[in-house]
């Protein structure tokens, strides 16, 4: 894994798996979010002039974007990740918006507290490949492997 490969998709019976890599937990959650959007397709925010398919690291300068407070609590990293991704999925499905930026207030074993910057999607330029019904609990894991954090999850499609 390196900066260019924050996540990979893998086949799973009739569904699809996402594996994200990072050196710290915050980056892992962000890369897992990139993976979710990657599973759905090539998503492009309406306020981007360049085709940015994924979550930006630093740009948060668009006045038309909305900032949402997100809090989750769960008993372990993997469940916290699933809940976080589910929130993103619902924003995508019900409001055609994607996470463009995230500012972390807290992220530990049991709690997530962050401000998510949501950008509207440009549906005319985005390519939607799959309908993700849910981020499942199946084979859900966050582990450390070869000095990296690795998150795996299966989406029901």
């Amino acid at each position, binding site marked *: 894994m390196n900066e260019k490969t924050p996540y990979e998709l893998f086949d799973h019976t*009739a569904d699809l798996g996402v594996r994200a890599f990072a050196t710290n937990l915050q980056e892992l959650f962000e890369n897992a979010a990139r993976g979710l959007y990657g599973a759905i397709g090539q998503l492009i925010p309406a306020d981007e002039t360049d085709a940015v398919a994924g979550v930006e690291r630093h740009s948060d300068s668009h006045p038309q974007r909305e900032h949402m407070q997100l809090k989750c609590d769960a008993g372990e990293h993997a469940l916290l990740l699933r809940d976080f991704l589910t929130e993103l999925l*619902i924003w995508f*499905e019900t409001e055609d918006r994607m996470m463009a930026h995230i500012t972390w207030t807290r992220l530990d074993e049991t709690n997530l507290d962050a401000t998510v910057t949501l950008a509207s999607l440009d549906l005319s330029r985005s390519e939607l490949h*799959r309908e993700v*019904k*849910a981020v499942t*609990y199946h084979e859900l894991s966050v582990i450390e492997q070869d000095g990296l954090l690795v998150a795996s999850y299966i989406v*029901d499609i």
Partner: protein
Amino acid sequence: MPEPFQGPLERLDANRLRIPQSYKNDMRVDGLIYANHALEKLIKSDRSPEQVANVACLPGIVKYSLAMPDIHWGYGFCIGGVCATDPAQDGVISPGGVGYDINCGVRLIRTNIPASRAEKRMEKLVETLFQTVPCGVGRGGGIKFTHPELKRLMAEGSRFVVNKGLGWNSDVQNTEAGGLIDGAEPDLVSDRALKRGANQCGTLGSGNHFLEVQVVDEVVDQKAAGAMGLEQGNLTVMIHSGSRGLGYQVCEDALMDLRGVPRKYGISLPDKQLVCAPVESKEGKKYLGAMRAAANYAWCNRQIMTHLARQAFADVFGVSAEELGMHLVYDVAHNIAKVEPYEVDGETKSLCVHRKGATRAFPPGHPELPDRY
């Protein structure tokens, strides 16, 4: 690739395999898989038999944890799994035994159009169906319902949309349970689920969902085909879809609500994805009420698409859907939990039957079938 199943699979006869209760300490009944020799190797190739054994650990399970010949690895429950629990014996309801797509199901619509007559219009027909029946990734485009309308729709089932002119009276009779499962509690469906479902009723979705124009290739039972109005060489339409985002969210909400519930009731589970609650508990009743509401939504979803498909056919063939004989043959769910009466050891019991990717078969004369079947 999933690891192959290493546990015991005993062949009972040409079509059945048994996972003995002794395989796991917590198994309450045997696992029973309907599979012939040809399917056995395939079934062992993933962990779906392990999931059959895990389901056998659920409290109140009756007789067997069952699996159909096409089982494959699912979430907690295998796809193609059936499990009946007895509410009177602390039997549980598990959202994983229904799946995310509540009341995903299939319906078949007959026509009196010979395939030979349709050949030249097939391209136009497919184009028109694409334009008329919304499909694809996550998009709406169906008939937009307000939240109060959605709640009525979930309370009244197929009849609600038929009364709005989106179908025929006979459609209701030809739908499992008349397109209405009793005990739906739309008020238990979250606002988030309503939001996900508001503009998706009457949309196909994506994944393995489809609307197909098919041909009756061969009739093997003339009497049954006659009763269903199926004739060799004629076109049919098959629709496979479910409860869309609304149902996914009802499942999602339940999985979240039930996280700590097994521990509360002293239920130990071999897999967290089997999260469950006793049918008679307040948590179990809450899920069942919302699940039934989502099931009714799914019947309305397929009903509206039936109406749209009829419109497309009428446009292309230049005559009404009635003249084309586009009657619904039947609509049956394959992701659902229903309370059904069964005779168990000489005693009639109301069992909570989970079917996940498994279709119920009705014999002639069954109350859920029209009389002519």
